[in-house]
């Protein structure tokens, strides 16, 4: 692995919140301290910008709940090993998510485990 160095520049700065490293929105709406596993069936895989979405139907005692799981752009995911064909409607998945703080059925997907044992990571 390549060695890395730091390039320093002297700057005039004041205390300010750090901006997000994300191109679109920050991760603040997701609760990373409340990670959660979902098991269900893919109902849609939106391979679109600015974010991909995996829709997963998860059985519950009151009926199935459709979760909207947001991920990185196809541009980023494709460089992390994903393809637009990585997930198919109807396949069973187990997904690690950071849920929405709002309590709505949504979150950021982190890892997607497919039935054949393949694991897809948001960040590879």
């Amino acid at each position, binding site marked *: 692995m*390549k*060695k*890395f*160095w*730091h*390039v*320093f*520049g*002297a*700057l*005039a*700065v*004041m205390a*300010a919140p*750090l*901006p*997000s*490293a*994300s*191109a*679109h*929105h920050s991760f*603040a*709406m997701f609760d*990373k*301290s409340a990670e959660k596993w979902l098991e269900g069936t893919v109902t849609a895989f*939106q391979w*679109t*910008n*600015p*974010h991909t*979405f995996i*829709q997963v*139907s998860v059985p519950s005692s*009151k*009926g*199935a*709940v*459709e*979760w*909207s799981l*947001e991920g990185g752009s*196809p*541009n*980023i995911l*494709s*460089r*992390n090993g994903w393809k637009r064909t990585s997930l198919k409607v109807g396949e069973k998945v187990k997904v690690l998510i950071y849920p*929405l*703080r*709002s309590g*709505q*059925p*949504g979150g950021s997907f*982190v*890892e997607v485990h497919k039935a054949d044992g393949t694991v897809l*990571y*948001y*960040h*590879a």
Partner: protein
Amino acid sequence: MLAATTVHAEVGPEPDGTQPADPRDLSGIWMNDNTLDETLKRLGKKRLDPGEEEVGPPRPTARLTPEYEQIRAERARERAKYAEGAEKCEWPGMPRIMTYPYPLEILHTPGRITMIFEAESQVRRIFLDRSEHLPFDDLDPSYNGDSIGHWEGNTLVVDTIGFNDQTELPGGLPHSDQMRIVERIAYIDGDTIKVDMTITDPVALLDPIEQTIIYSKRPDWRIREYSCMENNRDAPDASGERAGGVVQQSIE
């Protein structure tokens, strides 16, 4: 408001002693080494952990004039009307396009160097065949400005003016149409370049902003399409909520 001098760090590959075949040929596909995804890869991490909202170096920020401090505060109040995570689509423009988490391709053609950005398929044209900016009447305010460049040794020096006020400075700060950006672009080894950028704005900024951006060559990558307009489910609706964030009928 107290100003302080601090140190801003960018992480890049240690110069490996290699040299480019032609130090005045910047052509190729380049990626900012300090994006979130590239930083996680470098750290061998597959995800953000709690408390690690901001991976990577802090972006520089600067003191604003009182007038622009008011503009910043007003924009922040408007922004606060949106729900967490709600985000419109906007062209990043300069200088943000240079630190976006997507690659760019540099092309050399006679009299010109062109940067084609993956993000929003934006383009910067750097004119080497004129030494003056467009005359005032032709200098339409734009997201990426009017760039002219020349070589000082093996460093490409790019001077850009003619901006609109729709883009943000590092740290999300506003700027005026008087912003000027000077970039000094040079190889630090055979497949790494460094951009030293100085941003001044006599109307908005009390101090210049200086930032360094390091890009590695990615010969195996291709520039893909990226339009935020394609499927922005995070766009705010009339009430500021993420319009398409979740599916409404949650119980079947």
